[in-house]
């Protein structure tokens, strides 16, 4: 951090007009828009064509392709970043993404519990049961390693994929080594499974607190964290 300020110039008065606008100002037409417009047209045609091709193979594939496109589009447009939601409170003091992620947790929980409860009531297997994961030392170590990795790698799972799409070479390199890490992890999986994960509890909160109790407690916890995040930011605002 020795070279923070790379260039200093003294001028007599500040150039900036005294207003606080948040919008992108109209850019000077320096470069032609034609190459990107062409790229955009080609990409749109290719995305649609690939979707149509998948539909002929298996409609399920084209559905997932469409869902993926929507997720990528939303993540990029909102600059939604799960990494920042966990990193920024302690690093830069900002909690706006933390609060947004908590809002997502709250809304999605309510939707999921409705779907789960409906399946339970009709005696069907609970949708998403595969995501009620075992809690073991592997969760602890995995979370810790992932937390370190996502901060220095500049993005988590979804963030890395999103930034690959945005054209960041660094995130492309991250993706390669993410996949290698997963492969090494799957090779080692036997050991972890037999010695650590096997027999670890999978706790579905409704089994402990009942359906109504579980969603109520979940929303109270999310609400409390939201208030905490908000106070944290006000406390650090004068940074």
């Amino acid at each position: 951090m020795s070279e923070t300020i790379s260039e200093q110039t003294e001028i007599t008065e500040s150039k900036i007009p005294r207003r606080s606008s948040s919008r992108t100002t109209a850019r000077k037409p320096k470069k032609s828009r034609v190459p990107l417009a062409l790229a955009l047209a080609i990409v749109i045609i290719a995305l649609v064509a690939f979707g149509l091709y998948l539909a002929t193979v298996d409609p399920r594939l084209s559905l997932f392709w469409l869902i993926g496109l929507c997720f990528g589009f939303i993540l990029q447009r909102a600059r939604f970043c799960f990494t920042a939601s966990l990193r920024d409170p302690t690093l830069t003091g900002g909690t706006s993404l933390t609060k947004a992620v908590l809002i997502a947790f709250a809304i999605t929980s309510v939707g999921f519990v409705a779907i789960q409860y409906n399946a339970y009531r009709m005696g069907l297997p609970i949708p998403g049961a595969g995501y009620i994961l075992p809690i073991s030392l592997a969760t602890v170590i995995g979370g810790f390693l992932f937390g370190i990795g996502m901060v220095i790698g500049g993005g988590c799972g979804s963030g890395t994929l999103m930034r690959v799409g945005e054209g960041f070479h660094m995130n492309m390199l991250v993706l390669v080594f993410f996949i290698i890490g997963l492969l090494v992890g799957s090779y080692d999986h036997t050991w972890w499974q037999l010695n650590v994960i096997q027999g670890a509890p999978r706790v579905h909160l409704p089994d402990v607190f009942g359906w109504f109790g579980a969603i109520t407690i979940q929303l109270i916890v999310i609400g409390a964290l939201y208030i905490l995040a908000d106070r944290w930011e006000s406390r650090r605002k004068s940074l």
Partner: protein
Amino acid sequence: MPKEVVVDALGEACPVPLIKTQKAMKTLEIGDVLILKIDHSCAMKNVPEWARKVGHNVELEEIGDCEWEVIIEKVVA
């Protein structure tokens, strides 16, 4: 006399541009202007957001495809 400082964060990923901004702003006096050059699509949102929350005057200018200048005038200490 107000001064103008340029911070080059081109090619830097989040959260580096914001940390550089926070550090540079500490060294400035009220009325000074910082110009931050970035090409990270998330920094063009989180840097202005931070500066506005603190209470500075902020302008975001798009200077090319995926290149921006964030112009921050220090208003509060």
